[in-house]
């Protein structure tokens, strides 16, 4: 009865989208923070490490921004 009233599939999609998006963005942003922090720690010691951590931070930040923009665009196109 409740299953017929509640659109279970639609609700489940909302739950999974929300959980997936918030956890994915938090992981990506934390990795970006890790990259920034490690790059600043290695700044005077290891240029290759700085480059690697810097690249990690840049890629993760871009992915975060892309995820946010994609979410809003998806919402506005529905």
């Amino acid at each position, binding site marked *: 009865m*409740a299953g*017929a*009233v*509640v*659109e279970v599939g*639609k*609700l489940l*999609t*909302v*739950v999974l*989208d*929300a*959980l997936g*998006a*918030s*956890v994915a*963005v*938090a*992981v990506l*942003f*934390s*990795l*970006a*923070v*890790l990259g*920034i*922090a*490690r790059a*600043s*720690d290695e700044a005077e010691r290891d240029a290759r490490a700085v480059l690697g951590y810097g690249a990690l931070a840049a890629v993760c930040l871009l992915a*975060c*921004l892309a995820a*946010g923009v994609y*979410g*809003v665009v*998806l*919402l*506005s196109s*529905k």
Partner: protein
Amino acid sequence: MQGDTILVVVIATAIAFDFTNGFHDTANVVATTISTRALPPRLAVALASLLNFVGAFISLKVAATVGKGFVETSQVTTTIVFAGLIGAITWNLVTWYFGLPSSSSHALIGGLVGSMLVAHGWSAVDGNGLLGKLVVPAIIAPVVAFLAAATAITIAYRIVGRLRPGPVTRSFRLGQVVSGGLLALSHGTNDAQKTMGVMTLALVAHGDLSARSFHVPAWVVFSAASAIALGTFSGGWRIIKTMGTRIIRMDPAQGFAAQGAGAAVILAASGAGYPLSTTHVISGGIMGAGAAKRLSAVRWGVAGNIAIAWVLTLPAAAGVGAVAYLVSRVFGNGALGPLLISVSLLTLLAGLFGRRLRASRSPAHGLASA
């Protein structure tokens, strides 16, 4: 002519409701950003206000649900919409006065259902729609926000926990500017649409729009967006003054997780057309981010008050909406009833504000707060 007057009263009341909605919810949207010092208060409020405005233009699915999902659209009259709005505004004022964390969205739908019930009976109310599109999502959404924020902050602490705190704090503060912006955008999207739905419903009842297509006119979108943005902007200055101990203390990483989870839940629900209580979702996110660090950080008393408000809001707003409809009908079908009720409510509001103002300026209050 009478019909036009009542429509103007209803639209003005809906815009006033939208303003109070923004005013009421400013704290939820900017509190985390301000408490972690990610942004200065004035800038945080101004940015939230701007993004509330922009967010209102993103989607119209929630407006359609509010307009068509809970009541039989063809039986709605402008007096019913008016009475529903009065139910919502009155309940908002009562909960604001007593400091209860109430949902403006639930109050709005409760008020509308209450006035519809006394006007046409149960046959005009879609019980399945209420359960499936309002009650169940209302229970699930804050829990999802809680879990999302708790998971996000747990993973974030695992990744950045052993790093020097300086760069981590600075980076998460910057991240909060974006997550807070997304939260304000999602708030504008979900909350402004509820008023758009009600305004469109009034236009359908007045015969200006067709009930079949449920098209929301551009001027309705613009006025709802402006009202909620102005409400957020006005509410912010009061929040800045009363900030401090009332705001939950959290670090920027927790703030980022809480805001991100809240924004994700509200945006996903808006895409599906669910009118959520943004207050409850944001509170769920904040509690999740707090609980993951230590359970005692959560204000369980606030959680209890939210639960009480959940149970009370729909029936209470429905009751006030029903009474407002019956009082309105005493004066006939015209605009006199709604006009008299509006004047009475404005007088009551002025009285409440005056009393609060006098109390805050009195020497006794100063001593008590010192």
